[in-house]
């Protein structure tokens, strides 16, 4: 998704103003002339200035770019769905892994993405299983990362 300079400038200007206003509220540090708000406050003002300059260049641009332009991928339902699935599977993994465990969550995540990206169906299950076991071995056995077992706690090694 592409936005023109007026839109991105406005967003940055508002963000900068919010940051600066919030930073102003930070209390002064004891015995110091420079409070914790000075640095973020300056960044906020910098963003306001940069946002204003971007807006100005957007106004001056001829012909003016449309406010929002969708990428080719986002206009095609299949690719847009794939993009949403990338985000969705990460959220699914984050929510499921503690309860369900690494093996089922990782397997489902991989299988769904392989299917969406067009990997041949007969390869999906063996590939997803092999990668899941491989990553588990690398992180859990070699690097001692405590990947959760979840439902498979009984089989934990």
């Amino acid at each position, binding site marked *: *998704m*592409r*936005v023109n300079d007026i839109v*991105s400038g406005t967003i*940055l200007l508002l963000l*900068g103003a919010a940051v600066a206003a*919030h*930073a102003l509220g*930070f209390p002064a540090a004891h015995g*110091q*002339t*420079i*409070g*914790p708000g*000075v*640095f*973020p406050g300056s*960044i*906020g003002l*910098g*963003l306001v200035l*940069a*946002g204003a*300059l*971007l807006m100005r260049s957007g106004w001056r641009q001829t012909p003016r770019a449309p406010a929002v332009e969708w*990428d080719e*991928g*986002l206009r095609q339902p299949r*690719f*847009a769905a*794939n*993009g949403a*699935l*990338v*985000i969705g*599977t*990460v*959220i699914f*993994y*984050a*929510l499921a*892994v*503690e309860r369900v465990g690494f093996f089922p969550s*990782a397997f489902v*995540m*991989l299988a769904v*993405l*392989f299917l*969406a*990206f067009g*990997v041949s169906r007969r390869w999906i299950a063996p*590939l997803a299983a092999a*990668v*899941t076991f491989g*990553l588990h071995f690398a992180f859990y056995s070699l*690097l*001692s*990362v*405590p*990947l959760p077992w979840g439902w498979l706690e009984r089989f934990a090694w």
Partner: protein
Amino acid sequence: MTHVLEAFQLVLDPGVLGTVLLAALFGLFVGAVPGLTATMATALLVPVTFLMAPVPAIACMVTASAMAIFAGDIPGALLRMPGTPASAAYCEEANAMTRKGQAERVLGASLVCSVVGGLFGIIVLVTTAPLLAEFALQFSSFEYFWLVLLGLTCAVFIAPGRPLKGMVSLLIGLLIATVGFENPAAYPRFTFGTEALMSGLQLTPVMIGMFAVSEVIRHALAPAGPAHLPARGMGRIFRGQGTLLRQQAVPVLRGSALGTAIGALPGAGADIAAWIAYGISKRFSRTPEKFGTGHIEGVVEAGAANNSALAAAWIPALVFGIPGDSITAIVIGVLYMKGMNPGPTLFIENPQNIYAVFIVFLLANLLLLPLGWMAIKLAKNVLRVPRRVLMPIILLFCVVGAFAINNSVFDVGVMLAFGLLAFGLEANRFPIAPTILGLVLGGMLEQNLVTSLIKADGNPAAFFARPLAAGLGVATILIWLSPLIRRALRRRTAAATVLH
């Protein structure tokens, strides 16, 4: 001398050598697949190095990044798709040579020149870094403040694209760096009452998100078609390379020197070095008309430049803790995690570790010859691995890696959020490197600014009172004013033309 021997012992440990070999293969693979960059290889290695001792951890990153920068040339030459952004400058040229049936000649030359450039950069790193470190011991907060600001300024003004957009990226990075209570006043800022944000945002999930997850999202939205590889197999790669190196000695050395200089500048890395070296090669060539038709001169010069820049980027990173490029920005995070805090004192307190890093650099570049040869021979098999299979695996790797740092699901969320942010920024042509540099250097900038302001006691002239601080300060201010100066000069020239 004992430190050097200790360093050799650290590196020549079978475990470390095995790690270096595995990291080399990983780097070659990631570099050779278009869309997967050397920076991504380094970011993905962070969680893997988490439980390693400092030397193998750094060895992993040095080796993988050196291999990836060379391997990026392989799809550049064979498919006209640069494997990493550092190969983009000359990928048209290299591919034109492949179309003329000279694939092995151009890839062999790329390999040999990468090694020469890499070795050149290492020699400069080894000779200058300790001297600079001794010099840097005299630096006060004023010098450090200006040095960090100069580094960030270079990142904004040297990066391709509009400086205004670079500045926005930098400010976003600096803003993110302010989250948490690790600031001079120890006041929790922008934490929104969440405990997870108290210690600030972890660098690793942010890096993995920005350099790897964003790429997976991009692939999902616009998948690349299958690779069309040349049908012919690879001939003898090293045949005639000695003669070529002698003929092209000037461009290779000029590229290496230029790459080293650009790499050592904070904020500019291998990709910018390659673009500038290619341009200079054309400018000074006796046969500039041959550029673009499959001419080796630009390829060898830029190929040497990107590898020498990689080593030189470590100079400011190790001596001042100021990254030379995105890769060293990630490495600095790892150095802190390993208790090897970068800065001049590192050279005094832990010289054996620094020497070990130098030895690993040398080893990685020497290993590049046989392993690079193997990668070129196996290129077709590597390039045939479909990205629809790779991308989901990379995503799972990212998720597990982000989780591994603190065993926290919150970091997975941070990774995803930054993946989306980087995707949005890049889609709107905001460069990513200044954000990362701002994020890594934000704390240091604020710390030195606050210390300097307290020391100055309200007198701004104190920032320019010491000669070196004054020099750095003036240089920084001049770079910021350069667009205004250029515009004023242009107006004056235009007015003069009208008058005539």
